């Protein structure tokens, strides 16, 4: 008896379990991986899990797509969360674009996209940013030493 209740609890909320698993996978990749590109992949998985969460919340059991049909008793799914996620997807894509272009710049400056190597490459540097004012040398720092 107890078993079936437990199963119902698990299966009845399967969308949430999926979301939680994806979310944790994403966060784990962000934290555990040293490769900057892989970190961005993890970040995206993390974001996508939230998209799925919104979309599954908007689904009404037995409801059709929210397109007007000629039936007064028609049951529609809630379109609003879907629209919100459309916006969030755009934000996510923009974030990914900025992140990847930063990785490209980091690769050019350091010659690597591994977090540990970057830290080693910067280990000998002063705490202060290099001179770059009107009277300092303003040589660009592209083309690193790694």
């Amino acid at each position, binding site marked *: 008896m107890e078993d079936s209740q437990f199963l119902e609890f698990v299966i009845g909320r399967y969308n949430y379990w999926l979301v939680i698993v994806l979310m944790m996978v994403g966060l784990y990749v962000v934290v555990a991986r040293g490769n900057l590109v892989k970190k961005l992949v993890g970040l995206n998985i993390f974001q996508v899990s939230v998209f799925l969460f919104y979309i599954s919340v908007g689904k009404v059991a037995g409801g059709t797509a929210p397109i007007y049909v000629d039936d007064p008793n028609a049951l529609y799914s809630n379109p609003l969360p879907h629209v919100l996620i459309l916006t969030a997807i755009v934000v996510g894509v923009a974030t990914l674009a900025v992140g990847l272009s*930063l990785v490209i710049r980091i690769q050019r400056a350091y010659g690597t996209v591994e977090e540990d190597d970057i830290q080693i490459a910067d280990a000998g540097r002063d705490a202060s940013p290099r001179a770059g004012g009107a009277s300092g040398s303003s040589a660009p720092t592209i083309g690193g030493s790694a």
Partner: protein
Amino acid sequence: MMEFVMLHLPALQVVVPMLAAPICLLLMRGGLAWMLALVTAVLCFAMSLLLLQQVIETGPISYHLGGWEPPFGIEYRVDAMNAFVLVIVAATSALVLPFARRSIRAEIEPSKQALFYTVFVLCLTGLLGVTITGDAFNVFVFLEISSLATYVLVAMGARRDRRALTAGYTYLVMGTIGATFYVIGLGLLYQATGTLNMEDLAVRLQPLGDLTSVRAGFAFIMVGLALKLAMFPIHAWLPNAYTYAPSVVSIFLAATSTKVAVYVLLRFMFTVFGYDFPVVELSLSTVFLPLAVIAMFVASAVAVFQTDFKRLLAYSSVAQIGYMVLGFSMASVTGLTATMVHLFNHAAMKAVMFMVAGAVVYRVGSTAVASFAGLGRQMPWTMAAMVVGGLSLIGVPLTVGFISKWYLILGALETGDWIIAFMIVASSLIAVIYVWRIVEVAYLTPAPEGAKPVSEAPLSMLIPMWTLALVCIYFGINAELTASIGQTVAEALLNGNGVSPAVAIPEVVPATDGAMEGAAP
């Protein structure tokens, strides 16, 4: 014409900079883009002042975008609190841009200057939008507009030091996690209430205080926002971002972005959830208060050992954010007044300090504490401004810092918390040490032998710097204006429970469209 502008002021406040950004891009030339950005910032400042005046005279304004009624359409809602924050953001941008021209010329490649101003104006748009909107999802969108712009702005410091790139990248990862946490929390609230309008959320959340999903939503939103405002202990992105960003960006970020995040946090805590909400009170006393006190001490102590002026200021910012959090975690009118007053005061004093850093970079080329040697004689006006800013950071009487700490200590004594009052004073003493280190190097250490003579910073830098330094002194002597606004806000937040009648703009048109009603299940 004037009437039209006044009527649509809340929308124009965001639309003007939003339209100016792509035009900046099309202008191509750095000088022209700078002119346009400056005009935009000054216009925004004028509009924010008009809005503040209007709000003080007639009470909160509710602006319906596109004429859709609030729970369905997006509402811009201006009350004393966000009008005040709008003024802080817009005023900072209007003061930073005159400073920016020379500083940016020295620090950013000519071909990228127009792009810099484009992104800068976009960042301003985002910050103004977050502050003015009354729609919780709209907050997320504007927050991401400003954050994405900020990541780019920080990374533009790469010409001086390549570590700006990694600082920008770290900020991007942390900021995105924060924003996503906010969206998760909002999803949970939407699931429980079916609305995204803040006023509507406040009403519908009242009976739902015992729902676990709503409590989880509260926690997600608070953690997400705490990441954005760099609350101790999740402040790790801030020191590098402030240190390696171009000087102008450091000034702007230090004075505005964390303030806006604090505003959103207050808005959610006191307007949307309300002080009576079960978890709010608990989280204030068990999470926010202890973390704020630890931040005051740990971050100040770390600041003492920094060898770079900008990094020292960055850690000092983390400590000062601690004071803001401490203010509202007391949950009394005096405590909240302290937070609101400190939002303004800290914006002014940190902007002065980072402007000093910008001027030193411009003339000397480094922000290492050691490179300040002898500058007391060679850049007397800049260093004098630094002393004013430093005294404000410590909280010496006759500066704005004293007013903030006065209200904080008053708030602590009201609740009978002598220990907290004592800690506020003790942590100020640590600030004395880190400020004194710079003053000592600047005034008592002679310039190194054979160093090139350094001349005073140009007027275009000194004027904004001293305007802010005088603000630090003026509002330290006569704090009536800031304190009265702060108190009005604090009383509205704690007693009014946020829901108060507002003047609707445009006038509500009956019978919009029945189809929208499907949005609320």
